[in-house]
């Protein structure tokens, strides 16, 4: 009976040790890194369906369903981050199953904080938007944003452009040296083709200007 008890206790302890060796949870405190917002990436969203299509390869979108997926990032740190991540993950991957876990890394190594705060977002139509808004018109007042996707936003509602900027300018920690948000047009352009210029102004008086791809809006009746 005594030997049986010792055997059970030893087995339980051995199993516990084995489990702790495989599933290591000894992550170091993450290093805080500040990143600059010096580059942007704008891609077209086709918002005609139930869910926004972030991966549309078409340049033809319903004129009333045009949106933009925008990423602001630090061009230097972003590259370093994605290069360093696999090595970091391999270092902390479980002993026996390193290969399988090479890309599924549970430890947080860095916390990123933006150096600048966004102050303004401006959108210019580079071609005629409609009869009242010719080329070079500021159409920022026709924009709404979607950024945190909680509360009413999780149910598909948007933020005003002002609220979007307010949200983006709040100090927060990011898991990578970049952040993304979405902008949507509240009015349909009445034109065969259109391109927009977006300017992001920051509190250190720096700015990023980028242009969208050429878009061929489909009028409603052609759908």
């Amino acid at each position, binding site marked *: 009976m005594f030997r049986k008890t010792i055997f059970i206790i030893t087995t339980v302890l051995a199993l516990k040790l084995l489990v702790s060796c495989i599933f290591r949870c000894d992550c170091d405190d993450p290093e805080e890194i500040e990143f600059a917002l010096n580059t942007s990436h704008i891609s077209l969203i086709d*918002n*005609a*369906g*139930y*869910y*926004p299509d972030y991966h549309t390869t078409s340049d033809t979108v*319903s004129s*009333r*369903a*045009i*949106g933009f997926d925008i990423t602001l990032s630090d061009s230097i740190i972003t590259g370093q981050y994605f290069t360093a991540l696999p090595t970091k993950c391999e270092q902390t991957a479980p002993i026996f199953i390193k290969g399988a876990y090479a890309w599924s890394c549970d430890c947080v190594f860095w916390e990123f904080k933006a150096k600048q705060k966004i102050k303004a977002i401006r959108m210019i139509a580079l071609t005629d938007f409609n009869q009242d808004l010719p080329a070079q018109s500021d159409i920022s007042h026709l924009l*709404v944003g*979607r950024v945190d*996707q909680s*509360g*009413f*936003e*999780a*149910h*598909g*509602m*948007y*933020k*005003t452009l002002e*609220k979007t900027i307010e949200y983006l300018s709040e100090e927060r920690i990011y898991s990578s040296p970049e952040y993304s948000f979405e902008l*949507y*047009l*509240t009015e349909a352009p009445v034109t065969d083709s259109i391109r927009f210029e977006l300017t992001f102004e920051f509190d250190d008086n720096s700015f990023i200007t980028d242009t969208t791809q050429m878009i061929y809006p489909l009028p*409603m009746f052609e*759908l």
Partner: protein
Amino acid sequence: MKTKLIILTGFLWILTTEATEAQLVQRYSIDGFLGVKSTFNKNSDFEGLDFMNYFENYEEYYIDEFYLNASSHLWIKNNWEADLEVGVGSSLIPNRFDLRAIKRFNKLGINFGIENRPFFVYEAELYYSEASTSFYINHGPNLSYSYIQFDLFLLGPYSGINYTFENEKFIFRGDINAGLSLNNRDHCYVTLKEKNSNYVWSEEYLIKSSAAWWLNPELYFYVKLFRFNTFDIGIRVGAGYYLTQKKLPYDYIERHWTYENAEQQHITPPAHLLHQLNADFGISVRMK
């Protein structure tokens, strides 16, 4: 459900036996019974969302819910009686109750009570899918289709009369009660997205409490089967009809594009005449 009924019955048992031992109660009975109810509610042609159209949304009589109740009847001094009934419906939550005091004048009695009667607003989002197919319901990056449904409780006081005929083996009781009820407040909203468009809007409903009269005739039969120790064991059969005229007013908030862009108005849909039939069968234990 069985466990909840056992707990409720146990609670009633303890309450009544304690009261008996304290010599407040001269005798008592405890009933356990299974019932069915059938609700009839005619839809209105109201243009906006009328929650009553989805309130026990049955336009013909058929069994729409089972319930399991436990009740205790106490015979107290000075010709007073008390009746406590609690039960669970399909939600398995003990959300129905009826507390009643009765002053007896020979075979006639006067009832004073308070009751909580649960109902269910079911699939009210159908209002949108029936209205148009030009938009998506509850669009959102993190969302799938969801339902607009909630429990409504009609709670309020009542009064009425009853007639009881009782002999050694048989009891017949007939009640007619009339009362006022108030429904609980609730809140729901739906977000809609126009197809082929960025346009989204939300419609939020803040359901208000409103009063309604109701009428509830009831019948009760008991037949003694055998005697066990100091108790008579018998079967009971009950039936009732509930009539009310109910409306569900609400504050309606429509938001276009953003949360801030809101318009609010008060909406009062028409009252519906709601009929409910119920019948039950169970056992009764009576202390002599």
